[in-house]
């Protein structure tokens, strides 16, 4: 190639190329949504990887997604439903519990995975650049597959008990989104903290267990005396579970102040989590 020709190619080449400036970031960083969108394919592949690898080299495979909530439901039904005679808002106890265990499993899985995600993917973080937010996001989304599988059992149970959903079922996707947002909100905080303090990894099993009993899964939130019930919404999972029961089983009380409070809490947690995550992002590779 002639030199002029080469230069010309170089010029044309450069005209539409992005310019990247690397410098120390100062103060508040804004959320790079556009960049996140540019990396959507990586997000897709990471979710796909987590799903593919999840049940590799297991005998029961995806059946695990059913076994866990199903047997928890059985145990709850025997001890809390039959022996403990815990009121279930006039709905057969098994389906009452299972309907709550669905979002709970989704939440617990997404929370655990996303909290460990940055540490688990440290080989990526120290070797390649991409928006770090993709890592906890992908772990949260991967939980949806298990959720979908376990949902099949719920459909079977609804047929068995002859419960037909009302129009409220249209709100279900919103509550799924809500469960995910809740997991992400907490997961962002914990994953960022986990990079620096490995204590977090030990806290999570304890935290999820504690949270399970603090949420209206084995019991109904109507057990809580009225003036305090709305405050129960400070635990966002209370809002999620109540929303699930209402949209799927059509329990009498539509979600009210309790769910509203939960939504506000999640928005605050999520915004704070995003901010904290972004602030810490620049040091992950040095610290992890």
């Amino acid at each position, binding site marked *: 190639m002639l030199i002029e020709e080469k230069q010309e190619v170089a010029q044309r080449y450069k005209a539409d190329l992005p310019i990247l*400036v690397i410098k*120390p970031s100062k103060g508040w960083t804004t959320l790079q949504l556009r960049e996140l969108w540019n990396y959507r394919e*990586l997000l897709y592949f990471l979710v796909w*990887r987590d799903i593919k690898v999840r049940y590799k080299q297991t005998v029961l495979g995806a059946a695990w997604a059913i076994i866990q909530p199903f047997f928890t439901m059985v145990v709850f039904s025997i001890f809390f439903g039959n022996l403990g005679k815990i009121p279930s808002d006039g709905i057969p106890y098994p389906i009452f519990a299972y309907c709550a265990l669905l979002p709970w499993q989704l939440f617990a899985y997404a929370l655990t995975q996303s909290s460990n995600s940055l540490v688990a993917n440290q080989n990526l973080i120290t070797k390649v*650049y991409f928006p770090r937010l993709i890592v906890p996001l992908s772990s949260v989304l991967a939980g949806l597959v298990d959720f979908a599988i376990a949902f099949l059992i719920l459909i079977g149970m609804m047929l068995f008990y002859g419960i037909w959903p009302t129009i409220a079922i249209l709100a279900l996707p919103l509550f799924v989104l809500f469960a995910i947002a809740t997991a992400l909100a907490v997961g962002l905080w914990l994953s960022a903290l986990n990079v620096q303090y490995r204590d977090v990894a030990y806290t999570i099993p304890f935290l999820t267990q504690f949270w399970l009993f603090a949420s209206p899964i084995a019991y109904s939130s109507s057990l809580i005396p009225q003036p305090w019930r709305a405050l129960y919404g400070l635990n966002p999972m209370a809002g999620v579970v109540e929303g699930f029961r209402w949209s799927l089983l059509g329990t009498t009380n539509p979600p009210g102040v309790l769910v509203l409070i939960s939504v506000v809490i999640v928005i605050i947690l999520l915004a704070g989590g995003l901010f904290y995550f972004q602030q810490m992002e620049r040091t992950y590779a040095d610290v992890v």
Partner: protein
Amino acid sequence: MKDIVIRVENLSKRYLIGQREPYKTLRDTLAERFTAPFRALASSQLHTTSPNGNIVWALRDVSFEVKHGEVIGVIGRNGAGKSTLLKILSRITEPTAGRAMLHGRVGSLLEVGTGFNPELTGRENIFLNGAILGMRRREIERKFDEIVAFAELEKFIDTPVKRYSSGMYMRLAFSVAAHLEPEILIVDEVLAVGDVQFQKKCMGKMGDVVQQGRTILFVSHNMSAIRTLCENTIWLEEGQVRAQGSSNEIVQHYLEASLSHSQSSDGFVSIQAREDRIGEGILRLKYIRFLDSNLRCTSRLKTGQAASIAIGYSAAEGVRLDNVLVGFTLSSARQEFTGYCQNDISGNGFQGLPPNGEFRCTFPKLPLTPGTYTLNVSCKVGTLLADRLPQAAEFEVVDGDFYDSKLLPPSGYGDVLIDYKWAFDDLHTKDSALPLRNYLEAEGQNQAGNTVDN
């Protein structure tokens, strides 16, 4: 200049030693926090002075420019800041000060096979790894066959990579990386993988990339790779640019600088003043001498003639010098490791040595082709590393007669000469190898038998 693609201005990176500690427990920081309660969580890394003053500048005021289509090498000792520079340019970590401008999409290969998952098949890993390196899905689909063919893994592409041999794994990983097409490619030492043949193929692929007008920043310890691939080279030392310019020149200076601390005069190299050594120091290597067939000191040894390399040492009085291992490796400009000579391998044990003396390694016929060789020396006492010094001395090998034929193999076919003889056998004399004859006769009968059957 218009066609500058990478411009780096006063780039600096500071690490607080404490920050590099892998795990900090919550308790530690809670204690810290209480002493400084109003420091925001997020600004913990922005202290201007560290409490204990443990600051390390991994990079300090580094500036350079790279033109479009240029391949630029980065060399320097371990800890000189090469990796930090690459990490900043690939946006993995942030600089503390200064800035860098990159014109075009940046692809970085700080490692091959980043994000490979052992449970997934080769096919799945190509997609995953490609996406991680920044390729679009359609781009990967388009290049898929090419990637598989380049890795020579057509048959195993649907096998989980955990069943791959390490060579296959590396080939696949590199193959994905080699098909990356950003305008700027940042490469760290990844060519040091795989077998020699595959390395050559990769070098070829890198050469193609250059032809297509891409800009490459290439870090390596392999001086011959730097010389062949890069026009220009930046030499980093202690986080700063020590020199930059044409690769040949810089590599030359770099190698000389390592040697210059050794004081050399005609075959005698004193290494007493060198400080870049490691080891416990119960025994110190003092000098290196190169001796010709008459045991005279010379810096030029002759191929095929007797030669010795002598290494002087001294140790503190009263130290027991048993099970002493002394050795050196040889490197040439073409090859990182040409030879490895150590006394236990040749069956010469050293026990109960005096506190001063000289080790001598003798070559009855020096099996090295003409060229310049560098020596890394090391000495162990028992299992304790006593002294080790990289690039301790350099010597030259000049043309000589190795095979008593006044001939040597053409250059480029290895640095080491193999001793061998050729002969001819017509297989009809009695002295020919009997088993071979029996075998050939049996073959002959078989063939005869076959013809009868037919």
